[in-house]
């Protein structure tokens, strides 16, 4: 492996760990969600470097598309104040 590849792998690993820690320890739910989406992107690169394009493909499809939508929706539900029961009900 060339020096470039070593640095690339090292940076991917380092970023993944930092992102994972920050996703867990961030108070703001939306910030966590965004960090998690970036985590998915870097994870896809890690799968590429592990010579697993199949998993990278699945990670790209799920991480870039669907988890983002799902988690954004979930974070919005947590952030919005609970609906007060309407007097008519």
């Amino acid at each position, binding site marked *: 492996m060339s020096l470039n590849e070593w640095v690339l792998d090292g940076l991917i690993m380092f970023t993944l760990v930092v992102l994972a820690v920050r996703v867990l320890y961030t108070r703001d739910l939306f910030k966590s969600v965004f960090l998690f989406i970036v985590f998915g992107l870097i994870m896809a690169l890690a799968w590429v470097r592990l010579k697993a*394009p*199949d998993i990278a*493909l*699945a990670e790209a*499809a799920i991480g870039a598309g*669907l988890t983002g939508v799902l988690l954004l929706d979930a974070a919005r539900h947590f952030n919005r104040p609970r609906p007060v029961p309407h007097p008519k009900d």
Partner: protein
Amino acid sequence: MPSPQKVTDQLKAPSSLLLGLACAGIALFLIAALIELPDEALGLTELSKQHMDESGVEHPVTAVLLNFRAYDTWLEVGVLLMAVMGMLLFQRRSDLRDIERMPAPDPVLNWLIQLLFPMMVLVSGYLLWMGKFSSGGAFQAGVVLGAGGVLLWLAGHPSVSGFSGRLFRFLLTVGFGSFLLVAFYNVLLSQAILDYPVAYAGTIILIIEAAATISIAVTVAALIIGLQPVIRDRDRTPLEPH
């Protein structure tokens, strides 16, 4: 029903110590298992390579997933089906017809989905077809197609909630069902449950994969769209014919 706060309070008690101990135990066990691994991997790589020409496909991953260990994939499709059934049960509905509709798309979004959705269908089919030769396959293709469905719904296209309940349930189960049909046929001929004849293996795999793709797509889209609140019957607008 205890509030979330109470649940966390209860967890703080000795049970969290127990949980920690259990986690540490599992971690130790995993580390021990890693150390105990034999030096020379006796993996099945060689075995699957030897039988590649009987699998009907040219990509080792697809061969393993849909031929050598097809029951594994079958059960995974089953797990997805169970997940969507659980969601529908929880929300007491049997289809997505009464789901809340997004406002109709503005011109730019409309233009976008008119271009992008057909492309998603195309790429999904491409990934499905490529599974035979290289990376790709039912799962990836299904997720891309499902993402297309979610995009249509987000943009306010009425087609997603326009599915009839019967068609929706058919599409949900067609992947699991096609595996079941092959298994049933093989049991009748008293063969191994998911053994394909070598001559037709490629075709059978493609058909099963296509069915699984559709099921996975509908499942994934339904899992996301189904989380939206139900419109109550009284303010439900009749569906326009589309």
